[in-house]
């Protein structure tokens, strides 16, 4: 029964990551099908056993993930212990081996819901002026800087809490295994109430990871701050993926203040949209736009909880029909680089696409599987993706028959 089964294999050399210390970036393997079974062989770690090494890993789409402390695990790995002798371990759903397919940008990871089980509890403290806001989880959150999450609920009562953060994609910056920050200013206690503190009651909320936040870019980004001046500096909640020369437009609902940036209505030239150009990219979530906003209304991040039903968020949008994004070619750089995302800081992650004008709209979708960068459940210093220089072999299958 192999008429329609699909099989593929390949190998690559791991780039990044240090054995027992850090993980390499997630590795995307593109295939002409979406596999239902994947196995990995780390040739290097198989031949040279060492503690934290993972020589073998398996993932089967038909196997129901096993839940441990409210976290689901589905990638089975074999890990060398200190002896070193092989032991079994696992990696959480989405953090080990996982598949992906085009057109599924709205996929989420497991939900961490306060008051479901103690291990899923989390709290959010009020930030200092200007943010960022720190989130503390009861158990290891498993996130990596650059991951994107959304919140849900975050009510303390019907009129207090932090529901203003709901539904906004936030890039996280990991501080520790149980703390991370999000780029938002919650310093004003008149508008924000710390979530799930020792004295608060009635908290309802959850967070979950957005698994594939940048399958299409540049697109719409939510704004977390605007610095007015002869040029305008925009901070976004997740990676904007803009480049210098990008034409952008703004959607600022009136309660957020800086409505003068809105592309329409244009009070000076009715019907003519107001656009700006990106003149500098500071980092993954900050750009400078060539609009003189010195006399504009200040941006207001403080929204009342009562205003949340129907609250729309300020956004910066890639206009797309005009952009002059180019790439400086220097010694050693490819002449025709593929478009890249910048998930955190100034890190650049190349897409699978061929050369294109930087800043032009990129359809970054594909199908295949991902070797994630999350640590194993028991040996939290081991990563399925291997370490720098390891030779990794993979085999992927899509079976005719799978029982069940």
């Amino acid at each position, binding site marked *: 029964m192999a008429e329609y089964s699909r099989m593929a294999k390949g190998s690559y050399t791991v780039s990044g990551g240090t054995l027992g210390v850090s993980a390499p970036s997630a590795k995307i393997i593109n295939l002409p099908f979406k596999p239902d079974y994947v196995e990995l062989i780390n040739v290097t770690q198989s031949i040279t056993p060492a503690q934290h090494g993972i020589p073998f890993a398996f993932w089967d789409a038909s196997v129901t993930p096993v839940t441990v402390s409210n976290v689901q695990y589905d990638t089975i790995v074999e890990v060398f212990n200190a002896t070193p002798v092989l032991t079994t371990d696992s990696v959480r759903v989405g953090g080990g081996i996982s598949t992906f397919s085009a057109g599924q940008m709205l996929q989420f990871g497991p939900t961490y819901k306060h008051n479901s089980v103690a291990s899923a509890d989390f709290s959010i403290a009020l930030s200092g002026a200007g943010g960022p806001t720190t989130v503390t989880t009861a158990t290891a959150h498993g996130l990596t800087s650059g991951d994107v999450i959304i919140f849900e609920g975050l009510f303390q009562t019907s009129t207090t809490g932090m529901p203003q953060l709901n539904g906004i994609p936030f890039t996280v910056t990991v501080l520790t295994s149980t703390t991370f920050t999000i780029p938002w200013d919650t310093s004003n206690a008149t508008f924000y109430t710390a979530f799930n503190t020792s004295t608060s009651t009635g908290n309802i909320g959850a967070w979950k990871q957005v698994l594939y936040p940048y399958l299409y870019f540049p697109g719409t980004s939510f704004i977390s701050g605007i610095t007015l001046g002869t040029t305008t500096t925009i901070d976004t909640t997740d990676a904007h993926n803009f480049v210098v020369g990008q034409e952008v437009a703004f959607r600022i609902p009136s309660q957020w203040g800086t409505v003068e940036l809105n592309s*329409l209505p244009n009070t000076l030239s009715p019907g003519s949209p107001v656009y700006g150009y990106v003149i500098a990219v500071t980092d993954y979530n900050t750009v400078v736009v060539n609009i003189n906003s010195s006399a504009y209304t200040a941006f207001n991040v403080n929204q009342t909880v009562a205003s949340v*039903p129907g609250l729309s968020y300020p956004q910066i949008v890639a206009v797309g029909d005009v952009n002059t994004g180019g790439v400086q070619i220097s010694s050693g750089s490819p002449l025709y680089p593929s478009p890249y995302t910048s998930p955190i800081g100034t890190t650049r992650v190349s897409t699978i696409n061929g050369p294109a004008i930087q800043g032009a709209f990129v359809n970054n979708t594909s199908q295949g599987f991902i070797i994630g960068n999350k640590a194993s459940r028991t040996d939290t210093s081991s990563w399925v993706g291997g370490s720098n220089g390891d030779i990794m072999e993979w085999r992927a299958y899509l079976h005719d028959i799978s029982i069940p």
Partner: protein
Amino acid sequence: MRQAEDLILRDYIVSAASQLNAGGGTNGFNPSNLGVSDFSLVATTLDTNNAYKFMSGIEGMDRFGTGPVRSAYFMLSSTELQSDFDTLVGSGFLSQWNYPTNASALPSEYGSVYNIRILTSSEAPVARNAAMNNQGVLNDVYYNTVLGKQAITHINQDGYSMNLIYRDPYYSGMLAQNATLAVKFAQAQAITQDTAIRNVLSTRLSNLGV
């Protein structure tokens, strides 16, 4: 056969078009379920932005149970929201079968509210369990795309459109034959006028059927 193109365009729009959260509904979520004021607000926004409407109005006729239909933008929505639209009958929603004539109605058209005619599809984008109310209840978030005529375009690259690839079944086993059926196309999407398109995010009022 063109579903792949439709899905790519759908996801492109979800990613690239700006968003409004519905607030005219009563279910207590943000975004709320769609209320008639949401239709009015987004149509006003597109009107203010000088977007072109897709459809001319339908003049009223002397037929029982019908009413005139305004010139309208299109809203691409989920079939799962049809029962929500039914709750708006009498407060602004006009079912497609209540149009004076169905001559201009599309097969997927469910009805209209004010200046928006609603097309529904099971493939409309939805983020499952992406909203929570103050009781801890989860709800799905729907991306309802409202667009004017000049908002988006679909470009067939290299001067050709979709090719159908078909190879006759051939004998390859006792009980099976092997054939190939596929399509090949080179295309791209673009938002040609960003001011003429909005994704209106909403949750659902009604329970889903199974």
